[in-house]
């Protein structure tokens, strides 16, 4: 149907993960994520969504199968050229360093000259609306602001791929909605590819071009949904019938996934 499909940013080729203690964290997964997609991995805890994300990031080795980023094995691509950035569940900031120092960290580690780095840090802080807090210490900021610092730190290297592991899970509902909307803005402005892990159905529908439903025990991919709704999406989108329909579909799928797991007797 599509004459020339966009190039693949991520290819997961029957990658699976079994831990040394025998836990089957993730059954073999095949997945292709194109450049510019916003893919959400959705599922209950223990479904291996974080495991899959960490394998894409190169933080975990698959016990079998392969993962490619731009057609190169994960270990060689990505972080080395800083095309990939990872956002953790917690802000993961250095408490002793200022906001500016925290955001500059990846540039410092890569040996970017100070003046060049400072200009880029200022730009990244402006993007997340924290340019006035450059010299503040993390503990002086709210949880949502700390998360913004974390996002600024990931954007400062101008990555093409953003991997986010339940980044807003610990925030209150209002802050979470706000950051979701901001993230979508950054995604379209910077033409990013995003892989986003969450266990919130509403967040998944609101953000994604595609939702990958996963199930637990053993962790596996069960279904995929395209969310064919135009961007920019605003808060109004969340009260439309289409939104509810997507949410219902995902809800049913989630229930099916968890019931098969129980019948499968796999504990």
């Amino acid at each position: 149907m599509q004459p020339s499909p966009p190039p693949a940013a991520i290819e997961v080729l029957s990658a699976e993960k079994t831990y040394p203690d025998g836990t089957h964290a993730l059954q073999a997964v095949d997945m292709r994520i194109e450049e510019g997609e916003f893919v959400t991995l959705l599922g209950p805890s223990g479904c291996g969504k974080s495991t899959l994300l960490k394998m894409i990031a190169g933080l975990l080795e698959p016990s079998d199968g392969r993962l490619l980023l731009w057609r190169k094995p994960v270990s060689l691509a990505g972080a080395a050229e800083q095309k990939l950035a990872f956002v953790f569940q917690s802000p993961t900031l250095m408490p002793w360093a200022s906001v500016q120092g925290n955001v500059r960290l990846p540039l410092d580690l890569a040996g970017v000259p100070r003046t060049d780095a400072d200009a880029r840090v200022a730009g990244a802080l402006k993007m997340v609306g924290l340019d006035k807090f450059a010299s503040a210490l993390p503990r002086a900021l709210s949880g949502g602001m700390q998360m913004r610092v974390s996002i600024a730190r990931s954007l400062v290297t101008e990555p093409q791929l953003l991997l986010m592991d339940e980044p807003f899970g610990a925030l209150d509902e209002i802050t979470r909605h706000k950051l979701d909307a901001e993230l979508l803005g950054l995604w379209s402005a910077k033409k990013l590819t995003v892989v986003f892990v969450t266990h919130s159905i509403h967040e998944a529908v609101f953000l994604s071009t595609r939702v990958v439903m996963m199930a637990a025990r053993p962790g596996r991919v069960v279904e995929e949904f395209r969310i064919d709704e135009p961007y920019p999406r605003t808060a109004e989108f969340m009260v439309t019938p289409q939104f509810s329909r997507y949410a219902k579909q995902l809800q049913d799928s989630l229930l099916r996934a968890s019931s098969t797991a129980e019948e499968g007797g796999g504990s």
Partner: protein
Amino acid sequence: MSAAPLPLLRQPRVQRIVYPSLVAIVLIAVWQGLVVGMELPPYLVPSPFLMVKTLFTDWAALGSALLVTLEITVLAFVVATVAGVLISFLFVQNKQIETALFPYAVLLQVTPIVAVAPLIIIWVKNPTASMVICASLVALFPIISNTTLGLRSVDPDLQSYFRMNRATRWQTLVRLRIPSALPYFFGGLRISSGLALIGAVVAEFVAGTGGSGAGLAYQILQAGFRLNIPRMFAALLLISLTGVALFALMAWATRRALGGWHASESSHD
């Protein structure tokens, strides 16, 4: 912090000074009262007034003794800090080294220094050096255990972040491990500064019994032989004051080094 300033006596900062001072005044008054009221002779218990007076009249002897004790304490503290930090770095570089050597660090800690001190004083000819060695042995362990713990107490996610950004071993050490370890390290310093003083006093006692020495402990020993109890108390007072001063100095250094970033050092809001 709050809009309306609290009355002076309600401020925690003022209370921290006023309350202990009240206790001190009451204790000293009771002490002075008992000594005067029960007509206790100064060779049993000198009055606080006599103690302070002796401190001034005997300052020539006590002041130089204080300098000697301070010198040993400070040297021992520095030696223990440098050695302790080096040993900690060694421990975190390699788990096998830590597993092999840690029991000996514990052994060093649990062996009473009074029992080892005579040996060291016999083996090491220079009396100052021998006493410094004794005192640093006492002060060493908290630095090793705290710094090692600190160097290991790195946020695992931050560590992953450094790994993902291909940080070198050196970058990870300087930018992540050492700053993470600082609060623990300073906790160790605070304990060790007190221990260095205790170690110095113990070493002086042992050396003093052998006939050599010039520090405050030696003064106490000598004053004891001569039943010069007021001078004994004055020396004791000086040792306590030195300990308090060291502790305050360490607390100040900790505040300076950690600034506002660590929970233990930032004001409660």
